[in-house]
């Protein structure tokens, strides 16, 4: 699995203290639209390997992270750089929408 999971315990070290931009996907096993973008994320993680770290957060297991960043719907993809939240994309969007947002911060 290319997409490693992040929990409350590892959030700071993996996401906020990362030296390269980080993409985080918030998801839950009961969410249908989340499944739609699974193959897409794996593809993106390969495409931007080395430039972008990709993680996923299970909102059932780590609800406090979702609350902290004001997430109301999943899937939500967030891009972090230097520990700051830079962009958020809500919903199962087409690949081009995701790549445009990623390119902006690389």
């Amino acid at each position, binding site marked *: 699995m290319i997409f490693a999971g992040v929990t409350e315990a590892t959030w700071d070290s993996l996401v906020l203290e990362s030296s390269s931009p980080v993409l985080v996907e918030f998801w839950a096993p009961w969410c249908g639209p989340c499944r739609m973008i699974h193959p897409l994320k794996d593809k993106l993680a390969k495409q931007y390997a080395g430039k972008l770290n990709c993680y996923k957060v299970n909102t059932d297991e780590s609800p406090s992270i979702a609350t902290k960043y004001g997430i109301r719907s999943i899937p939500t993809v967030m891009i972090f750089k230097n520990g700051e939240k830079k962009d958020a994309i809500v919903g199962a969007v087409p690949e081009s*929408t995701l790549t445009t947002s990623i390119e902006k911060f690389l």
Partner: protein
Amino acid sequence: MATKLGFSITNPRFVPASFRKPIISVSASPSLPSSASGVQSIHFNSRKLSIKRRLLFFSPRASTDQQGQVQGDEVVDSNVLPYCSLDKKQKKSLGEMEQEFLQALQAFYYEGKSIMSNEEFDNLKEELMWEGSSVVMLSADEQRFLEASMAYVSGNPIMSDKEYDELKLKLKMDASEIVVEGPRCSLRSRKVYSDLSVDYLKMFLINVPAAVVALGLFFFLDDLTGFEITYLLELPEPFGFIFTWFAALPLILWLSFTFTNTIVKDFLILSGPCPNCGTENTSFFGTILSISSGGSTNNVKCSNCGTEMVYDSSTRLITLPEGSEA
């Protein structure tokens, strides 16, 4: 007749979003008081040249600052990006500049203070236009929405949830691209939502059958009567041709649009992606011969995976019926 025809064709329902958007954005693009955005875009090219000149002017200083004993490649590098090395900062990515731009707008509108000088703001705006950023082209409502989204995440909301949702719905009705979200689940209610948008092409095509019938009838009658309709006014040849194409045809098209509108009232064709498989499905809203298609909601079955969906034209949302699993 001519004005009526013009009206029915420029009726906003038939104008695709892509045509409307630039019109809104040009007229409503806000800017700090000193910078008139209209003037700026006219002088866009010359201003860019002046930036380049400034870069050249700064470059000797930058290289003496940084050069030291380093020679060769290093010197070339500092000449390439003298503007950035002066700032002692890394070149900002497009996204970061957009964020800064919106923060400056937000500070100005909601806190009444400037977080950067007018000159800095103008430079940032120019840079964004040069990079082809869409943020500087947004309408006032769109910028307000982006600011509100940012403020919400940072924990200092600038409007209530209700105002936020109303603004979002308004932008959705205006076919703004910035509020488009993919199919998603609400974390709180666990309900599935998907956005609906107006299918302008299909709304146009619904007028076609009546137009075809009317046109067929016109040429049929014309033929049957030995082209008497076109010769009705006994016009000399070039004028007869002009009459057919510039008066008779527009009249027929206008009549068929009107005819369609009396049969199908206040109609709206909405399309949106299925929350399960992403296939676009369309649904018709309106009244056919004064029989309503069922109020503001329609039940739609996905053509690809068969998922039952509920289309709501007032909220422009697709939901799944109660009790079903996504």
